[in-house]
Structure formats: C-alpha cells, structure tokens
C-alpha cells in the first residue's frame, strides 16, 4: 500500500487553513496510508488544531491510515493545553479496532 507523506510547514493558523485544508482533507480521505509531518509547524492556533481534529476524524471515516509525525513543540503545547492528545494518535487506534 502506498504511503503518502505530507509536510506542514511553518504556520498552521487561521491565515493558512483556508489554503491548506483542501489538500490535507483530500489526502485524509484517500484511503491510503498518510503520514503528516508536523515538525516544521512553528505556529499553530485553534483554527489549525481544529483542522487536525477534522483530518483525524475524516481519515477514520474513510479508512485512511493517518499518522501525525514529529509534532513540533508548538503543536504539542496547544494539543496539551486542549487535552486533545488523542488527535495526535491519528487513526491507528480507530482502524485497529
């Protein structure tokens, strides 16, 4: 099964989600294995985090194996504050079940 890799760079904020969302959502619903590298995310806000949560849920619906890789400190900090660690687990848990 092909593994698709995507990098999210620099900013995952309200100013960028509009542009980033279509490609990421399409990939999350491809049914492939998708690895999204978050190591380059220097800034993230609630709109960005909301997009990650949506990707995780939609990937689960579409049987896409989604993994978020190397979350940057900015990402883990916001995820930690929102107690949404499960988002970073991707779909591994859901699809196994």
């Amino acid at each position, binding site marked *: 099964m092909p593994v698709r890799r995507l990098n999210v760079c620099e900013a995952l904020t309200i100013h960028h989600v509009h542009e980033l969302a279509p490609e990421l959502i399409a990939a999350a619903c491809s049914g492939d294995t998708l690895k999204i590298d978050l190591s380059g995310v220097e800034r993230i806000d*609630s709109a960005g985090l*909301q997009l990650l949560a949506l990707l995780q849920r939609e990937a689960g619906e579409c049987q896409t194996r989604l993994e978020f890789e190397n979350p940057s400190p900015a990402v883990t900090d916001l995820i930690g504050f929102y107690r949404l660690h499960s988002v970073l687990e991707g779909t591994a848990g859901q699809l196994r079940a």
Partner: protein
Amino acid sequence: MHSALPLFVSECSERLDRLETALLALERDGCEREALDAMFRDAHTIKGNASVVQSGDIEWFAHIVESVLERLRSGNLQADRQLISTLLPCVDHLRFLVSLATQPQAAASVLADEERTRLIGLLVPYLGDDIPQAHGIAALQASGNFWNISVSFAPSVFLQGLDPVYFLRHLQSIGRLIDLKTCLDALPRRQTYEPERCYLGFDIELDSVADKQGIEDIFALVRDACELRITPPQDKNRDFIRLIHSMPAEDLQVGEILVRVGALTADELAEGLRSQRYLVGQSESPLGKVLVEHGFVEPTVIDAALQRQSEMRRTVSQEARQIKVSAERIEELEALLAHVHHGLGRLARECAAGPETWLARQIPALVAQTERAIEISQDIQRVRLGSVFHPLHRLIRDTSHGLGKQADLLVSGGELEVERCVANGLADPLIHLVRNAIDHGVEAPGERLATGKPARGLIKIDAWQENEHLVLAIADDGAGIDRDRVRRAATERGMLSPDTPLEDADLLAMLFSPGFTTAARVTRLSGRGVGLDAVRTQIRALGGDVSVQSFPARGTRFELRLPLKARAAHDAGESSRRHTHH
C-alpha cells in the same frame, strides 16, 4: 461621571471606616469569626459597588484586600501586627482611590500607581506569587471544589481575530485549571466544514476564589460571540445564600440582590431580563425562573433572594425614608433661606410704614416659617462627634507603635451632635492633643510597669454638653507635665526670669505660648513648638478656649470648652479677633 458615584463614595467611606475600626479591633482583641466575616463582606461590597460604577482600580484593589481577608478568615493567615500594619495602609489607599473617583480623569493617578506598587510589594507574602495584573483578579488558594465553565464560541470568532485559547489560558491567571474538555461535537463533516469558522466548545473545571463576575470578565472581549455558563462550586452557593441573608435592608429587585452578592453577573441579568421580556405574553415567567432555566443561578439561591427581598421591603417601609445629600447643597439651601429671610424682613419694615393690608398681615407668619426652615437646615447639617473621634483610634495605634509605646483610646459622648463647622474645627486640635498625649504623656511600657502602671497607657476623651456649651476633656494617664522643664524652657526663651514666683496654672498656661516647646529634640510628632499654640488658636476661632491640668505621675487633662452654636462661635471668634487687634 456615573450617576451612582456620589452614593458610591459615601457608601465606600462608611465601609472603609468600619473596616479600619475592625482591623484595629482585630489587632487589639484578636480574631472573631463574625468580625472577620463582616470585614470580608465590606471589602467584597466595595469591590462589587466599584464594578457597578465601573471603577476598575478600586474594584481591583478591593479584590486584593478581599483576598487577603479571605485567607485570614479561612485561617491561612494570622492577624499579626505586621499584617494589620500592611492592611491599614491598604484601607487608606482605597480611601484615596475613592476620593479620586469623583474627579476628572487621573489627576493623581501617578501617586496612586506608586502607592499601589508599594502596597502590592508588601502584600506579596500574604498572597503568594499570584498578584494579578491590574485588569485581572487574584488567583489564590485551592478552595477544594470547583467552578464549572461551559463555553462555546461563535463561528465568527476566528475571523474577528480572536482565538479561544487566549481566553482559556487567561483563566489560569485567576486560578488553576483542574480539567478542560474540548468539545468537537459541533465540528461538521468535511463537506460543510469551513476552515475559518470556529466549531469549538469547552467544558472547564476551575479552582479559583475569583467571583463569578471575575470569571466572566475574562471573556469580556468575546462575550457577545460565545455562549457562556458559569456554575459556581457548591460552597459558593452556600456563601451566596449567607451573603444574601446578611445584606443590609434596601429596596432591591431580586436581580440586583443576586448581582450584589456575586451570584449573577450584570450581563447574565441583562440576558435574563431580555428573555423574560420575550416570554411575556407566552406564559408567566418570573425572573427567578428564567435565571434558573438559563442555568445562571441555582434555585436555592433564588429562593434566598426572594425571601430576603420580602424581608427588606418590610424593613425599608418601616424605616423613615432617608436620602443622602451633600453638605454643600444644604449650605446652599441655607444661604438661600437666609436671603429670603432678609428680604422678608425688609418687606415687613416697608409694609409697617404703610397702610395695613392683607399682605402686611401675612409677613410675620412667613418670617417665622422661614426661620423654622433655617433651623431645620442647620439641624440637618449636624454631625455626630463620633465622626471626629473615629480617626483618632488609628492615629493612636500608628503613633504609639512608632514610638514603641502602647495605648488605648476610650471615648464617650460620640453620640452628641454638633454643627459641621464645629466638628471640622475640632479635628486638628484633637489630633494635636492625642499625639502630644502619646509623645509626651504616656510612658514606654517598661517605665510604666516599673511605676506600677499597666503597660498600656489610656487616653480618654469625654464629651458632654453644659448649657449652651460643648465640653471635651482629653486626658492621659501618663507621667504628667514636668514643671521644672516648663520653667527652664520658659526661662531659656526669655519668657520668665528664673526666680519669678508663678502660680502652677500660670506656669502651665505658658505651654500655649507661640513657639513654646519643652521637647529636647524635634521628633516627627512634636517639639516644633506649634502644637498647643495652634490648638488654642483653633479652639478660639470656634469661640471657645482650652485649659490644662496636670498631675505628676498621674497624667494630664486638657479641657476644651466651646459654644454649641456655630453662629455664636463665629461671633465670639470675630469679637476675640477684634479684641486682639485693639
């Protein structure tokens, strides 16, 4: 200016006086639960009222004071001398802020800022590190049970440049986030998802001693773009009920009662009233029911407010209706009446010269009624002597501490009423005499014990009425006036030759001479030789005089005697001044 400001100022002044008295009593007599509760309530009410008149500085600082009092009340702090010495200047600072409240923007705000910084520095040990920013509220001790905050943000907030995380993180400035659940239920499927819309909601448990308004204030910027429910901890509901039952009697609406005790915020009340108006006609919906349905207030709290409201209405209707009016307005009224009285007098004389008419017959009655009106306006301006005595308690405490002495003040006659100008004129002389009593009269504790006296000195002020005179006696149980020193000092100043025989009373009268002092050194308090001379000048300006008696090792007693009527005092003052000029 907020229309409620004059009332706010007068209310606050009363509460701050009470708070100061209670702090002094706390230091002297130790902790009593009820007294601590009352102090806490005063600070809390000042804070609440400040928020009503939108005086953020006062609200913020009163909150800090309230927070310390809360820790004191809950046993986390001891009411030692150091803490009281820190809290008393805080009361002064609040007084200062209240006095600024009626003035146009920030005349003395730099001063206020400096003093606040200084006081916060002193308060740090009592509050921990959590001194809030000037717009925030103190985050304090863990309280054991928690606020529940449920908030969902409107889809538009991201586009307004507002990120929920900002508000949620800000909650940490007023307490500890025990739990935060991010609710993603509103996040739609990808087909209808719009990345720039916000779909987030949160359910938060917060441990904080902040009040409901304080929590709501965190969301102030986004208040119209979120649905917010703040549910107090169970303990808090019990506090609300207790506060409701201890509220002074006023004719208040249920909503106002709830806002005053902090069970309801002003925004919640407004929302409740809007809903109630909307519901009118559909069904009978009392406000209490609407507030419960919205989840703003617990039913038990509503019941308590309704009960208190009916009690208050009974009390208020029983009490005479009272209003607060500024002294200036009454003086203005009195001046006008005096003018009318004068005019009527002239009219009476004109009419007396002419034929007897209906008009001429009416005049004597009008004159009498005007005189009665003047009397009433003078009566209204009378104040209790107690208001002049009040600051002396604090003065004695601070002065004696500064000199390493201990002294108590016992007053009687505080219920006597005098004209405002008499009360004002007495304030400075009393301060002088009380300071003198501590500085020169009352001995240091060791010295007192050695001579068989209690370590704490006693200063007594008695006031009574004798015919048309007011008499005040200010007595201490100190060492008494040292005649030899008075004689020496008078000789040094060339006021007396060394061997002039002099009656005791005449020798003591020299104390009132201009520039006279026996103090070997100039202290912060006395020794500049202006004290007793100034006292006599001020009392004479009120038409009175001052005398002194002193007994070695038993103490000194000053007696002030002045006419009760300001007019008489004024005339006497004038005549004494004329007399002096001759």
